[in-house]
């Protein structure tokens, strides 16, 4: 690494406003509101549209919901269900992996 070149740190707390989120995933405001109603999205902070901030995870989730709807011809409720099941699969996978490592480490000696 070159110590002479300073790389400015990125701010992970950087969240998105309603407008940024809408522009980022390329959908209209109404669709974002519908995703909030469906429980796919939840503002991390703020009490009103103008002050809402969304996390990076929310942005990824919303983008996935949009892709699932477009690519698989499912409606918003279907996308919400798919996302919940995908979340569950992924946390179960992590769990199985953690437990397997715990067991197999000793079995392999």
């Amino acid at each position, binding site marked *: *690494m070159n110590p002479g070149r300073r790389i400015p740190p990125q701010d992970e707390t950087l969240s998105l406003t309603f407008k940024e989120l809408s522009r*980022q995933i390329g959908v209209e405001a109404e669709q974002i509101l519908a995703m909030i109603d469906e429980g796919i999205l939840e503002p991390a902070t703020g009490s009103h549209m103008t002050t809402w901030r969304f996390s*990076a995870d929310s942005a990824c989730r919303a983008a996935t919901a949009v892709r699932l709807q477009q690519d698989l011809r499912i409606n918003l409720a279907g996308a919400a269900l798919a996302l919940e099941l995908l979340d569950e699969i992924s946390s179960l996978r992590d769990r199985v992996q*953690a437990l397997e490592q715990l067991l197999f480490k000793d079995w392999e000696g």
Partner: protein
Amino acid sequence: MKFKDYYKIMGVPEDASQEDIKRAYRKLARRYHPDVSKEADAEERFKEVNEAYEVLKDPEKRAAYDKLRGGWQPGEEFTPPPDWDTGFEFSGGGFTGVDATQFSDFFETLFGAASPFGGQRGRRGAHGFSVRGADRHAQILIDPEDSYRGTTRVITLEIPEYDDHGRLVRRSHKLKVRIPRGITQGQHIRLAGQGAPGMGGGSRGDLYLEVRFRPHPVYRIDGRDVYINLPITPWESALGAQIKVPTLGGWVDMKIPPGTQTGTRLRLKGRGLPGQPPGDQYVVVQIVTPEARTEEARRLYKRMAQELGYNPRREWEKVA
């Protein structure tokens, strides 16, 4: 340019009906959707399936493709015959909202914007049109300690970009990333403006880093909970013991009650990854028996066998 067998990709016979093709497409789209599938080549397969469907669902494109197809093998080096697209009626707007920019050269040559199938469809973003750059996604491997304390990491990303001459080059790009305290596997860190450049004055996309934990020699992470194996001796198991156990926050004294067996899970509340609420650390007991290497050791074990008269398989007597 390689020849592509769209029927083979879709897994349908040449004489498949439009309904059969639609059904095959929907099934494959669900199977290989990159957001759903865990298969390594899902994204590639998904694009391929979409490309095949784009051709086979459209009777005009399908007829033109069928005429061309005889005599070519999949993967074979392919150049279209000069008159391949004559003798067909084109209605023009053959595309139906699919993003065809990601399709293969094979598709682009036969059915792309420059072909008669392309119609009026030109390249976007050329004039008076600004498009935001695409978001990029990557994974970042961190250690459980990074999440426990929060830290900054310098990562190097290989990013494909077009140089001044329009050639595709890989540029390595260093980024300093702040790892927030308590971040868990699967969460995303967003780096604004580090995605693909926009077109026509559009802003750059963002970079999303998905957090994964690097395998750790001691800790296993499940959500915010931390798991650890605790090897103990048979006498520690039988008599109980006071044992120092490592946690992400440092060593902790732990009481092992007498009679603790292998597989017993003991909880250290709040000693997992930080958060609201913080995770716990689970200590899973594993009894490790020393080998009887010396005469003295063998004597000890034999005496235990005689004195304790213990049968760990008593349950089996009921079934057999």
